């Protein structure tokens, strides 16, 4: 609207300053720190450059390998399950029925509250030895499970906490579904296409931009999960839920190894960067934007 470049630049100046000071500078600094043996309690001047020692050290660090493994397991289990479940419920909800708004509220609520400490605390009680789930099993005559004390079930409890928060992805899917023109389905009905076929041939292709958005957001968030493992399982037992963000935190603020912790955070950054880069690169092969079918409404 305006062509005055000077005034325009003035408006975005806060972002430029904030970006340089709180993002770009720490970003570069963390890489430099990752090449040193800096410790939290010492002056930074005392740190020595150690080259890539922090990175090569990871090769022989069994805790890191365990942490990397469980992080991938966590992401690869939660992201597809959460997206599939969110899409499934969105499709069920996308129907003219009474009380749909009420259900949407009920499903969306957990993703608003789910990241809080209060919910993590409740989760810990739900899965505790004498907690809600074991009481429920007991009343059915089934013996209790030591949920937080066994590696597999401890992981299961934090996976479930993330799946419980499927609502935000569902709301985005639902908005995407509502944006699909109804005449497409009417035409498909006339052609005698089954509901299943309509889902695969109309719904899913037209939903791919929304699926892409949800996928990126879920990947980025899942790789950064901290509250669940920190509060519910403390990363245990036997590091079975020791996700990378928790390890990064503990290396820095419990063991004071700033150099090693920075190197770990760069590994996490590179993993997330690879995933998002591949997703963005691959989207031309599977994401269907509206202009592809000669429609200038909406779209990218």
């Amino acid at each position, binding site marked *: 609207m305006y062509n005055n470049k000077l005034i325009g630049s003035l408006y975005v100046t*806060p*972002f430029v300053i904030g*970006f340089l000071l709180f993002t770009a500078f720490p970003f570069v600094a963390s890489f430099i720190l990752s090449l040193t043996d800096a410790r939290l309690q010492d002056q930074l001047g005392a740190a020595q450059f150690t080259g890539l020692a922090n990175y090569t050290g990871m090769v022989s660090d069994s805790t890191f390998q365990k942490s990397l493994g469980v992080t991938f397991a966590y992401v690869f289990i939660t992201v597809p399950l959460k997206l599939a479940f969110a899409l499934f419920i969105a499709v069920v909800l996308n129907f003219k029925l009474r009380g749909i708004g009420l259900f949407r509220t009920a499903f969306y609520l957990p993703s*608003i509250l789910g990241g809080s400490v209060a*919910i993590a*605390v409740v989760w810990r009680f739900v899965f505790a030895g004498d907690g809600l789930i074991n009481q429920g099993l007991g009343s059915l005559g089934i013996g209790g499970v030591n949920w937080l004390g066994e590696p597999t079930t401890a992981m299961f409890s934090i996976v479930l906490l993330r799946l419980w928060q499927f609502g935000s992805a569902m709301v*985005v899917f639902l908005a995407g579904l509502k944006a699909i023109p109804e005449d497409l389905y009417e035409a498909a009905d006339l052609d005698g296409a089954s509901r299943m076929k309509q889902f695969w041939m109309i719904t899913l292709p037209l939903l791919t931009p929304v699926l892409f958005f949800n996928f990126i957001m879920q990947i980025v968030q899942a790789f950064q999960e901290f509250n669940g493992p920190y509060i519910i399982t403390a990363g245990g037992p036997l590091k079975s839920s020791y996700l990378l963000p928790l390890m990064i935190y503990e290396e820095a*603020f419990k063991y004071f190894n700033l150099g090693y912790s920075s190197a770990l955070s760069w590994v996490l950054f590179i993993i997330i960067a690879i995933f998002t880069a591949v997703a963005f690169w691959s989207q031309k092969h599977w994401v269907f934007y509206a202009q592809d079918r000669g429609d200038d409404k909406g779209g990218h």
Partner: protein
Amino acid sequence: MVTATIDTGWRKHLPVLNAFLRYGILILVGFVMIYPLLWMIGGAFKNNAEIFSSIGFIPKEPTTDGFVNGWKTSTEYTFATYLLNTMKIVIPKVIVTVISSVVVAYGFARFAIPGRKWLFALLMATVLLPKSVLLIPQYLMFREFGWLDTYLPLYAPQAFATEGFFVFMIIQFMRTLPLDMEEAAVMDGCNSFQVLTLIVCPVILPAIISVALFQFMWSMNDFLQPLIYLSSVEKYPVALALKMSIDVTEATSWNEILAMSTIAIAPSLILFFAAQKYFVEGLTSGAVKG
């Protein structure tokens, strides 16, 4: 008549069956989703023995012991201190986030800025960048500033539009607006800042409310940042106080902890029910219109 009914028999009932199936799935899933919350709130009004002996959420002998004793906490401060501390962090954070995001979004949406494409790409990159890669240098920087054990590290960065997601949300909203009102104001002699405050802000109010609500909610939930920066208990927000309480009293007083958890999520819960529409719009504006 009769034969016609028989002919179309089961097909005629298909919509009913369909609705029945949908409701069945929704009720089942909804029940599982909401039960932990009901159990928390119900448990807050139970005595401890009942929490361990019944899986129902309605207390048989309702008591406010959990609230009374939980409020006192195991520290020298009452829970009111922690609630107040939370507000001391969250309210400034929401205000500076809204102001900086609106100003920056206005620049992006209405001006020809040199290198705008690149700046926008950087803005979006901040959304995807994992926060943990910035954590340690930011900590060291704030230590140099002498800001440790203060609330400044928790909201000062937000005064510089560091949360790209919010800026993006407002840009998207501004792009959908017709320009004629703003152009008319310019004709009448308004400068661009007056246009922003007098014309644009009232129109983008829904987007502003969405940003404020999301930031409020996320800041209420925030745990890692206060954990790193705050060391004196008297400055703890609710998130840290709750974590501390389970470390101290876990074995005994579940009702106290459930009561305080209920209080901790109450502000978010009330806001969510009061303003659900803004949460839905805020969330979907970037994803669907994008």
